[in-house]
């Protein structure tokens, strides 16, 4: 029996052992409410403060600029709605890209009911947002721009520094947000230098921390409102008791991931190079999607004339976990908005598989993946709808 191979790290990662130990400890002993004034409350509060300090050190910002949330989706919701409702007196125009995460796309779309007017930055066929056009999209009525740093489906990197500079030079009142869920602890960020970035989202389970916890960086002075009702804490931006154990777990994960960032990047780059070269050499009819300038953690491979779901099912049955770039069923055919934005040709768009690596993966695992795909592919390509 061969062991399980996990190549879906962009969806979620395995928590570090240290994270699990720390969380168990906090659950067991530090059960107080971090807002209570007694001893147990203070204990918990100390844990929260320490985690905020750790994130602030990594991001090079202040601790009171860190707002803990229940994950990336909440951070993105807070960033978008919070800014929109705080600033809509100045205008209703929002700019985002065509391939953001659903928590951005859907949230912005939802604001249409409150008169939001949306412009989209186009994506080129390499999967990079065309920020040259950004300047033309900005109007006097623009109040908010959201552009992701690393795309979750193809791994391409957007030049956030340049994008935010373009935005601020044109109109300094616009709030600039970046969804950095896929980039945090994988690529260095220095918010002390990136002065034009006002808001940044991150999520614990993408860097070997726990699920259900994330954070939003809110630069001091940003005009933003809370989105949940209740007793407001954390700079009056979020209501709700803090998840002490998850935040403690996130802190440990961030510490370890940040410390090993360079080494991990080096290792995963090697793995990725090996994967891309070997699979291109050994398997015909494939395309590696995305720009050269992408994180090595994510690789989208498009196979001609197959249904990615079938390949995924097959690999899953032999304990290899990957994800598919498109979903299909006999009732309806829907393609990922990212792939559509990238304009992939029809013979390829059904057959996109996403391999997302972590530092835990090995060359042997990649060998096995390629071997298994090679074995099954001829059959899958033979069976097509006629």
């Amino acid at each position: 029996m061969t062991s399980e191979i996990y190549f879906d790290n962009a969806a979620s990662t395995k928590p570090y052992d240290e994270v699990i130990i720390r969380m168990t400890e906090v659950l067991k002993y530090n059960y107080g409410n971090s807002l209570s004034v007694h001893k147990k409350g203070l204990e918990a509060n100390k844990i929260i403060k320490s985690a905020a300090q750790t994130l602030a050190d990594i991001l090079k910002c202040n601790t009171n600029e860190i707002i803990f949330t229940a994950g990336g989706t909440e951070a993105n919701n807070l960033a978008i709605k919070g800014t929109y409702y705080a600033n809509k007196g100045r205008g209703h125009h929002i700019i985002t890209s065509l391939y953001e995460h659903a928590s951005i796309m859907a949230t912005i779309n939802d604001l249409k009911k409150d008169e939001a007017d949306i412009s989209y930055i186009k994506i080129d066929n390499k999967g990079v947002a065309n920020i040259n056009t950004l300047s033309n999209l900005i109007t006097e009525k623009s109040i908010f721009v959201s552009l992701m740093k690393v795309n979750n489906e193809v791994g391409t990197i957007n030049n956030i520094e340049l994008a935010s500079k373009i935005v601020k030079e044109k109109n300094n009142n616009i709030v600039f947000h970046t969804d950095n869920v896929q980039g945090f602890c994988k690529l260095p960020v220095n918010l002390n230098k990136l002065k034009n970035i006002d808001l940044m989202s991150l999520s614990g389970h993408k860097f070997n921390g726990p699920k259900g916890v994330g954070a939003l960086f809110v630069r001091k002075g940003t005009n933003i409102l809370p989105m949940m009702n209740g007793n407001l804490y954390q700079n009056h931006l979020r209501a709700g008791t803090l998840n002490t154990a998850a935040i403690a777990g996130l802190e440990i994960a961030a510490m370890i991931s940040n410390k090993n960032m360079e080494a991990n990047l080096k290792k995963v780059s090697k793995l990725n190079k090996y994967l891309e070269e070997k699979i291109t050499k050994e398997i015909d009819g494939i395309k590696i999607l995305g720009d050269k300038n992408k994180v090595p953690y994510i690789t989208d491979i498009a196979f001609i004339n197959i249904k990615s779901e079938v390949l995924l099912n097959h690999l899953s049955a032999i304990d290899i976990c990957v994800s598919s770039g498109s979903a299909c069923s006999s009732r309806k055919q829907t393609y990922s908005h990212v792939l559509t934005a990238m304009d992939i040709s029809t013979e390829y768009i059904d057959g996109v598989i996403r391999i997302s690596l972590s530092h835990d993966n090995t060359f042997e695992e990649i060998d096995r993946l390629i071997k298994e795909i090679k074995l099954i592919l001829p059959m899958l390509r033979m069976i097509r709808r006629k």
Partner: protein
Amino acid sequence: MEIVLLVKYGEIMLKGLNRPYFESQLINNIRKKLDGLCEFKLKKTHGRIFIEDIKSDASYEELSLKICEVFGIISVSIAYKIESDFELINETALNVSKKAYEEGNRTFKVDTKRANKSFRPNSMEVSKLIGGNIFESFEDFIVDVRKPQITIKIEIRENTYVYYKEIKGQGGMPVGSAGKGILLLSGGIDSPVAGYMMAKRGLKLEACYFHSHPYTTEQAKEKVIDLAKKLAIYNNGMKVHIINFTTTQLAIYEKCPHAQLTIIMRRVMMRVAQQLAFKKNAKALVTGESLGQVASQTLESLFVTNSSVDMVVFRPLIGMDKIEVINIAKKIDTFDTSILPYEDCCTIFVAKHPETKPRIDSILKSEENIDIDKMVEECMSDYETVELKNENR
């Protein structure tokens, strides 16, 4: 005074000499339904089953609703069991009326049945006397013999039972009394409803599902099992036979004309299901087909599919509209599961333009390219069985 559940059963009563067979099947099914829910004693008299000496954490209403899941039952009532003594009957009837009155009912009648013919006064007199007492005991509570809001029922047997509420059962025949059938269960809306309807006629079902990994997902398989769990409530548990169909499906795909893929696949599935039926000692197949619903359910297609097997095939939905089927699916709580989007993967095995009026000679000719006997044999040697218990909801 003791509270008991009085179960009435219907169609079985019309049976002749074989009535005890149906009754004992019904009693078995009730026992299984209550297993683990309560301790009780069960007594049967003519047309009635009494659940007595109940010890349970569940309320009488909950237990009644559980019993109503058993096919063959007309109604369940929560009744007071007392000694057959007129004064006691009168007192209990007044208590029961008080409850009904407090619930807002303002018209009533008293209906007395007297299996114990030696009891005096007679049925008519009991109704009259007690009706009069009730009328006098409450303000504005009047008798209406035609359309009363409630009927106080008094059944005088060895003991006497007084009640006024009847929780309606589903009718039908006790599951198992009609023998066993194989249900071709897909993940759709129709087949679970078809299964429910045949179980209602007393057929004990085992389900078979055709799995085509990797072309169908694990989720699709899980979904079928979830549907079978819902059916298990009515079917006294359920066995689901999951047949590995990939090799067969690929062979059909390769060797048969594409416009005929679906119809030939269905013929092979019927053959496999029939073989499974032989093995499991089942005597019928059950499908969710409905005339004209899709290409494979035109009269011509049904004829061609049907002719692949000799066994009787029940298609209880054949004359129903989709909306009628959906209404039943909602009632038996399978609808929300059925509409989950884990379809058989993609559209690979579905021809773009399937034949809607296949001819048997042309299909038989196409089938010369494949070895159906061998396919059936292979399927029968490669299936797993999941056994679902009759779980309490």
